[in-house]
């Protein structure tokens, strides 16, 4: 990914001074939403974008992070900062468990996606049925700002925290994309069997990816809990959450470093706009997301950043090249069989 350092620095500066320029709490909230979706989507990207194992159940990790820190805080008074780390670890373990069951048993493609969906649902049902998690009532975090307890009176502080998290995770993804792990993951995505025969330990690499992805998603979950101060199974473990996590990456470009951020920058404001214009109707934003998803899949299947990279640069991807000037070759009505 060759993006000029000047543009990056410029973007960072804009993000950094944003709260100094914009004081409106509503816009601050949107900015926080954008960044926190960028974070979790970026985390998803590590597993699904780079290794091509599309998870439809990342809510499992998100909810784990949210509930771990919240339960530890409300029942044991443990600081959510520590809860954040514990949540990340637990999520990583759950991720490894799911990974073990999936990868050892060679779940690929659609089967893997549906499998992750099932795992997320299993967790949701468990949470909904046991008192220790307050079942469907959810967990309420008392409003008592205290930096040591990961609670702040000023939105601006939340903004900077999530900004730092988002930048850190993006930097991590950038680093991974250029590392051996990254190359291995892409090889697995392009052709897992070929990668295996070339000596790549596909199992180990996928496990590393899912563990990292899970723990980072959980961090997003803890942040969400501490920002919203209320969590319940429907907002942390549900299918909708999994969909919201993967949308920015898909639209922005799965498997690219900037994809989740670009995707987030586009769909969150659209979601908010539709809710504002059509506020009395529930679900307008999701419908808008659906339309965008369909359009992107039809016309920009590589996502926005992916499309840019194909047009103006090189990308390590076996995109079906539609450039058919000499040879035609558009397979008519035939499928992959």
């Amino acid at each position: 990914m060759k993006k000029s350092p000047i543009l990056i620095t410029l973007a960072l500066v804009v993000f950094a001074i944003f709260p100094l320029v914009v004081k409106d709490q509503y816009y601050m909230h949107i900015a926080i939403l954008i960044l926190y979706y960028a974070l979790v989507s970026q985390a998803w990207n590590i597993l699904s974008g780079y290794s091509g194992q599309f998870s439809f159940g990342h809510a499992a990790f998100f909810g784990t992070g949210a509930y771990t820190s919240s339960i530890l805080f409300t029942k044991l008074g443990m600081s959510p900062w520590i809860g954040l780390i514990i949540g990340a670890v637990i999520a990583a373990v759950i991720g490894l468990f799911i990974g073990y069951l999936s990868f050892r048993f060679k779940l690929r493609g659609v089967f893997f996606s549906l499998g992750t969906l099932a795992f997320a649902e299993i967790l949701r049902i468990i949470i909904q049925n046991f008192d220790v998690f307050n079942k469907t009532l959810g967990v309420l975090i008392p409003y008592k700002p205290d930096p040591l307890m990961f609670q702040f009176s000023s939105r601006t502080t939340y903004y900077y925290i999530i900004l730092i998290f988002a930048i850190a995770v993006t930097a991590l993804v950038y680093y991974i994309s250029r590392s051996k792990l990254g190359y291995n993951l892409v090889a697995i995505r392009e052709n897992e069997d070929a990668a295996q025969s070339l000596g790549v330990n596909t199992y180990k690499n996928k496990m590393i990816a899912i563990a990292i992805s899970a723990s980072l998603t959980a961090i997003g979950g803890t942040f969400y809990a501490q920002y919203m101060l209320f969590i319940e199974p429907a907002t942390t473990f549900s299918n909708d959450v999994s969909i919201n996590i993967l949308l920015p990456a898909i639209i922005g470009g799965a498997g690219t470093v900037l994809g989740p951020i670009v995707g987030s920058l586009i769909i969150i404001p659209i979601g908010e706009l539709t809710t504002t214009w059509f506020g009395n109707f529930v679900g307008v934003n999701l419908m808008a997301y659906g339309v965008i998803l369909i359009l992107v899949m039809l016309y920009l299947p590589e996502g926005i950043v992916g499309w840019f990279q194909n047009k103006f640069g090189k990308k390590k991807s076996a995109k079906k090249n539609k450039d058919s000037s000499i040879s035609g070759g558009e397979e008519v009505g035939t499928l992959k069989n």
Partner: protein
Amino acid sequence: MLTLILQSLVDGILMGGIYGLVAIGLTLIFGVMKIINFAQGALLMLGMYISYWSFIYLGINPYLSIPLSAISLFFIGALIQKTILSKMLNAPEHNQLLVTLGIMLVIENLALILWSPDFRSVKLDGFIQTLNIGGIGVNVPKLIAFIAAIVLSIALFLFLKKTMLGKAIRATSINRNGALLSGINTNRINYIAFGLGASLAAIAGSLITPFFYTSPTVGATFILKGFVVVVLGGLGNFIGAIIGGLIIGVSEALGGAFLPGSLKELMTYIIFVIVLMAKPNGLFGGKAR
């Protein structure tokens, strides 16, 4: 205790017929187009609403509005296939899944906007709700739904086996290029298959209107169970879809009888995970991708 088990078995089998019907639609679409239709539940929901509104505004019995919902959804399905899915036939499989997810989001949320999230239900008067057979209560609407589902499955089976169009559909799902070279218009087969799949979902929706709550989010329950049944029975396997439906219906009912709260839903997913690991091609063998 025995009565409880028997009652659960009966309830489970009856409901299982409906799951099977949803799964048959999914498996038909997958067989022909190799696409997993995430929107199948949403299409079922549309079928429900057609029957619901027919009942409320036109006083038509939900069972009588089945042809209406079936035909409407056939055309909606064909439209979706022609405008969107036909362009995705050669796309990577996760993109195909995502596009049907997008379609589901649009349909479900459009319904939410138009009809609000309120749960509605249909009350049929002058109708014996429950039959008592040897101490077991058999819910009549459920029984009707089950019988209809079985009859429909048999009809579909015969259609595929005996008619030229049915054979062409099977041929397309076995070997697309071979079908093309035999003069079969596979594009038309695609939208017929998708339209049929959508119809089946709609019919299932109409059948459950008398005993299930009508709401825009109804589809979500059925789609997840539908996936489980399809994988259990084998992708592309019709008989497997029915039997898978019965298995899921029964295990869910037994779970509901013996497990507290909503833990019964766990049964379905745990079976799913086990099948995915042990026999991803389904109990009866189906197509892997």
